[in-house]
């Protein structure tokens, strides 16, 4: 039965995409043999032309799944169901739909898709941090998702209020683009994309036809439908609807058993009557999933119109704007807004010290500790007594919204004290508060219950992604979303799942950390989490991941050409810089002056670029640059040349390590039986069930000696298995030859 479905599924999928008679020849007549046959031609062709075809032909109504049995035409059957319409959910649904899977996106409120904000006004997506996208390490995630064919980068590029590149005085590996975005516009854009609307772009109109097989429906999922083999079959909603699909992605964010705290007062993070989503947590627990609780907080919002900015230090955006997306079609400059900087005063500190007993942590009624990278203002004041003042950032939340985000000022104080506290800040003396600061507690599912493909270990076809896995931030959510979306689609299609290795990307690092390490706080990506920072830069996210996106089918022809052209220009330019030589002249003088190093006669431009403080702009200034290159491309050239030695060294170190670390571990190892492992590592390894040796070595409490012991056991097992197989083969060969010599030939064939 299983294979039967699979076959129909594939041919159905293919017909939707190719709509070509040729395919029918291959797919239709051989029901049973489809799998092997289709493989020969059409998939290759799919690989090369997928996006091409889908753009041209997916206009064909999705009902064209001609070759299925009647039940497959019922609306409630899908290839992939995505639950939750936040950042993870949107990326997952889009990726899955673009891969050709008939996808259903279930969200609590269609109007609030990708809504960046708050439980108070909107319950479909709790995201208590500010509407900024990017920043150190997070920007790399955005670039990487974009390189794979995701949306977050494009949307952020379209809706920014302000953009700045952080860490510019450091090396290229830690340059970080951060954008303040317009929260309303952001949600609207994303919703439009998801709803397969046109998105309007100044340059030209792009109709994203690939979302033709994405349906959206408002529903509250309360349970998972299980099949016989511990596989997911669909979801069940509050109002008793069942939706069926072989892959389900859960991205329910902080919504599970959410609880909001303001001072001592708490309420469930859902409207009255929506407590049903508590059911999901319990039902997951009933299935044997372990849940745990995390806490995070958000500062208050003030009315922008009541703030006096005149005395505050403004923070302007960059004059020359950088972009998240590698797709130049989305590089549309807009007018930027300003952020402001204020500081806590003596009065602020005094007010907090006087009322410490009113805060959850110091009052002692909430034990859960918040994230270390997001401490409440009272924590900062208590822990760093010697600091007289702390920076507070005032960030607008949109072009047409009055809310101002008071970054760095989250607090657990009761609401009545919050306004007086805000008014101790310079510039906010007369402010009015639109929303109080609050803390949220919520359930998450420790991600060691997932494989690195984000599929759960317990239930085949069920994927977790986003905050539900214990992360925080849109970027982390989007990164998991696209991976789970890809894998959900591939799973429904009977294909192998993909895993991005830790060394390949921040996305890979993120997921590897999540499924391997114990979380103490909501997980936020930081550059220090990556051992290979220098190789995982923003500028090379496309050359690292776009080829993969293309292979998967998420990068269309136009985008692929854009990428290849860029690559060609960069490498051509590097070749040019290697060959063009100069002797003396203004350029040489300038270089000598700036770098403090002499320039030899007939130096190549490349050698100049390698000197300290020499940037490509110098070449431009003296007419030695290449006008055809964009700023980003020049940056690529400069980085590749300037840091070549380092990059090559890191690359070779990585290569050495990778061979060892990527050795796969069989999924069914009985760690408890391995007496040569330490007790602790037996326990931890059984819990985490790592997929590779490298992952095993990163599990807390597993020592290098344990890894060696593990290697020995693996090798011993392999030998045993090999021995057994050899016996079997020999036995069967012997049996075979016996039969051949003894029995009649026909008998063998008929059996």
């Amino acid at each position, binding site marked *: 039965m299983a294979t039967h479905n699979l076959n129909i599924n594939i041919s159905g999928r293919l017909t939707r995409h190719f709509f070509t008679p040729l395919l029918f020849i291959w797919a239709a007549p051989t029901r049973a043999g489809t799998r092997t046959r289709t493989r020969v031609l059409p998939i290759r062709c799919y690989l090369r032309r997928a996006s091409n075809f889908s753009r041209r032909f997916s206009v064909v109504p999705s009902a064209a799944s001609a070759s299925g049995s009647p039940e497959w035409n019922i609306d409630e059957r899908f290839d992939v169901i995505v639950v939750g319409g936040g950042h993870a959910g949107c990326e997952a649904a889009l990726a899955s739909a673009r891969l050709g899977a008939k996808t259903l996106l279930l969200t609590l409120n269609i109007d609030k898709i990708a809504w960046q904000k708050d439980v108070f006004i909107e319950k479909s997506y709790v995201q208590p941090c500010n509407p900024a996208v990017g920043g150190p390490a997070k920007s790399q995630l955005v670039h990487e998702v974009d390189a794979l064919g995701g949306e977050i980068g494009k949307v952020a590029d379209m809706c920014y209020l302000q953009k700045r590149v952080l860490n510019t005085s450091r090396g290229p590996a830690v340059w970080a683009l951060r954008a303040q975005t317009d929260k309303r516009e952001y949600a609207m854009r994303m919703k439009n994309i998801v709803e397969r609307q046109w998105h309007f772009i100044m340059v030209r109109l792009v109709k994203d036809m690939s979302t033709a097989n994405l349906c959206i429906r408002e529903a509250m999922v309360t349970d998972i439908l299980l099949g016989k083999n511990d596989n997911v079959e669909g979801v069940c909603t509050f109002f008793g609807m069942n939706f069926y699909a072989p892959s389900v992605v859960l991205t329910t964010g902080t919504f599970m058993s959410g609880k909001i705290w303001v001072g001592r007062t708490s309420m469930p993070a859902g409207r009255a009557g929506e407590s049903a989503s508590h059911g999901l947590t319990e039902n997951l627990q009933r299935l044997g999933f372990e849940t745990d609780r995390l806490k995070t907080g958000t500062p208050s919002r003030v009315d922008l119109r009541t703030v006096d900015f005149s005395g505050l230090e403004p923070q302007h955006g960059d004059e020359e704007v950088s972009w998240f997306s590698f797709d130049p079609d989305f590089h549309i400059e807009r007018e930027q807004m300003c952020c402001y900087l204020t500081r806590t005063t003596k009065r602020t500190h005094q007010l907090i010290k006087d009322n410490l007993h009113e805060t959850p942590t110091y009052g002692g009624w909430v034990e859960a500790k918040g994230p270390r*990278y997001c401490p409440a203002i009272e924590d900062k004041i208590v822990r760093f007594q010697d600091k007289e003042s702390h920076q507070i950032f005032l960030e607008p939340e949109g072009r047409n919204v009055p809310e101002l985000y008071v970054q760095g000022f989250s607090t657990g104080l009761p609401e009545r004290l919050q306004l007086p506290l805000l008014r101790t800040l310079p510039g906010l003396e007369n402010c009015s508060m639109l929303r109080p600061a609050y803390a949220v507690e919520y359930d998450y599912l420790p991600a060691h219950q997932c494989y690195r493909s984000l599929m759960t270990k317990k239930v085949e076809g069920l994927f977790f992604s986003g905050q539900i896995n214990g992360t925080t931030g849109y970027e982390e959510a989007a990164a998991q979303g696209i991976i789970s979306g890809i894998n959900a689609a591939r799973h429904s299609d009977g294909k*192998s799942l993909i895993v991005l290795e830790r060394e390949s990307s921040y996305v890979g690092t993120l997921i590897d950390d999540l499924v391997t390490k114990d979380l103490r706080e909501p997980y936020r990506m930081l550059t220090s989490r990556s051992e290979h920072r220098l190789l995982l830069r923003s500028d090379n996210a496309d050359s690292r991941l776009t080829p993969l996106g293309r292979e998967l089918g998420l990068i269309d022809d136009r985008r692929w050409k854009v990428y290849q052209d860029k690559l060609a220009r960069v490498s051509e330019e590097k070749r040019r810089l290697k060959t063009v030589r100069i002797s003396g002249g203004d350029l040489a003088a300038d270089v000598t002056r700036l770098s403090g190093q002499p320039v030899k006669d007939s130096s190549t431009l490349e050698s100049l670029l390698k000197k300290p403080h020499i940037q490509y702009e110098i070449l431009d200034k003296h007419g030695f640059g290449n006008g055809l290159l964009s700023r980003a491309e020049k940056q690529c050239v400069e980085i590749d040349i300037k840091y070549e030695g380092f*990059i090559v060294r890191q690359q*070779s170190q990585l290569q050495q390590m990778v061979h060892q670390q990527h050795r*796969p571990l069989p999924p069914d190892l009985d760690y408890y039986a391995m007496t040569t492992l330490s007790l602790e590592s037996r326990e931890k390894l059984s819990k985490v069930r790592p997929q590779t040796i490298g992952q095993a070595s990163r599990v807390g409490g597993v020592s290098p000696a344990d890894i060696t012991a593990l290697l*020995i056991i693996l090798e011993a097992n392999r030998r045993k298995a090999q021995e057994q197989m050899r016996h079997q083969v020999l036995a069967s060969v012997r049996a075979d030859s016996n039969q051949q010599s003894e029995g009649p030939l026909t008998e063998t064939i008929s059996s």
Partner: protein
Amino acid sequence: MALLPSLRSVITHQLHHRPPPPPPLLSIASFLFHKPKLRRTTCKNLSFSFSSSSKPITLNPLATPKDNTLVFKKDERLVADNGESEEKAGTFSTIAAIVTSIGGPPGAVGIVRLSGPMAVDIVGRVFKPVKKKKKKSSGSGSWRPTSHVVEYGVVLDRHGNVVDEVLAVPMLAPRSYTREDVVELQCHGSEVCLRRVLRACLEAGATFAQPGEFTLRAFLNGRLDLSQAENVEKLISAKSVAAADAALAGIQGGFSSLVTSVRAKCIELLTEIEARLDFDDEMPPLNLNLVMDKIHAMSQDVENALETANYDKLLQSGLQIAIVGRPNVGKSSLLNAWSKSERAIVTEIAGTTRDVIEASVTVCGVPVTLLDTAGIRKTDDIVEKIGVERSEAVALGADVIIMTVSAVDGWTSEDSELLNRIQSNKKSTESSTPMILVINKIDCAPSASNEWNKVGNSFNEHVFTCAVTGQGIQDLETAIMEIVGLHQIPAGGRRWAVNQRQCEQLMRTKEALVRLKSSIEEELPLDFWTIDLRDAALALGQISGEDISEEVLSNIFGKFCIGK
């Protein structure tokens, strides 16, 4: 042999895309053996391109749809530029160790073995074959040995000094014990030679092998048979015991505490820098000069440790101990007793020893050269006079001076005069050679030890001996070890290995710090510094293998007021 045709059909069936290989059993084995490799390549390509999966999926029991495709894509921009040389780096690093027994009496020949993908390269860096005249010189300098052909030559250290003459035995993969490239250097059997050769190899890039690691590799590479696996496991569990032992021993050791403190400094600097990378706008700017000072101080620490690491210096030259004293106090007897030989002629006649006599002993694994000198006195005998001059010169150049006096005579004025002469000589050359007072012939005059305390100030130690019975020699050795700072290393091989490892850690740290300094000089941005700092911290933390990222993060959050 009726088996064969059907056997072939089995093979072709399984291997589809390959031409049918020559039949015999062996090829089945090799097919089975290579299977993991096949799978790994499948994994690399996405299964979209069915090029690699032309073997039917049903035949591979493990390739269910659940199977994950691992993706490690290379940076295309990088690959396009220098798409070469990745095959060189094999599965493992290259390890080296002394594989003949040490600690006991030296054998005639000792062996340093290297194994790993870089073994030939590394030996090529330290080994210079002594060329036959007519052989064409293969200019480039890279050593390209023929497998299993012995070559004669010398091992050079980093500065190009000859360390030892050796026979190099290359055994190229897979025809070797570990199935990797293996090179064995057969050196002279003395511990000093062996350690120096090993050191040269480590400096050239090899890693110090863990106990049992050669056997482990042999096993993992399919060389040993299954029944031997158990033994390997035992070896490895012994290894963790040894590691725990070493860690315990390390708590007191000077090296160990240094390693810990340098590592802590690395982490501290990493914390400072990384905090600024992740929380740029919330942190006060970093005082670069301060950081650079710290880095310099740290590398100075490491340098000093490496330089003064006594045993290290001792390994290169051994200890020179001069035995001086008035005539006929028993210097030569002491030498004979110590070296358990009749090296020096002993008579009742004062002034028997005219020239400097050498004898070699090993103290706690350190080679010691004993120098027996002519008794120092005013003399008219022209030969003896030269002898006395030589004695003084030798005393000046020695690492430790043992001044011998006779318990029978007590402290005499001649002794005082002699002491003064030595001390004034020391002053003029500004040397601070430690001195030990040996009160010999204790058997003839069991005098109270108090008597000697008053002269003891000029000496680092005083020891009572009886050269005739050998009494006190043990104390003397202990005293010497204490003075040169080796007292914490007990005799025997294992503890030595611990220090050797720490020494290797320090060496790696030093390399990382040298690179770091050059990054600073080249004015590379701050985040590049972290790469080498991390390397240094890693090199120093290898025994316990902890997670640096988490440690740094905890420090960042603990130390700085950050986060919005």
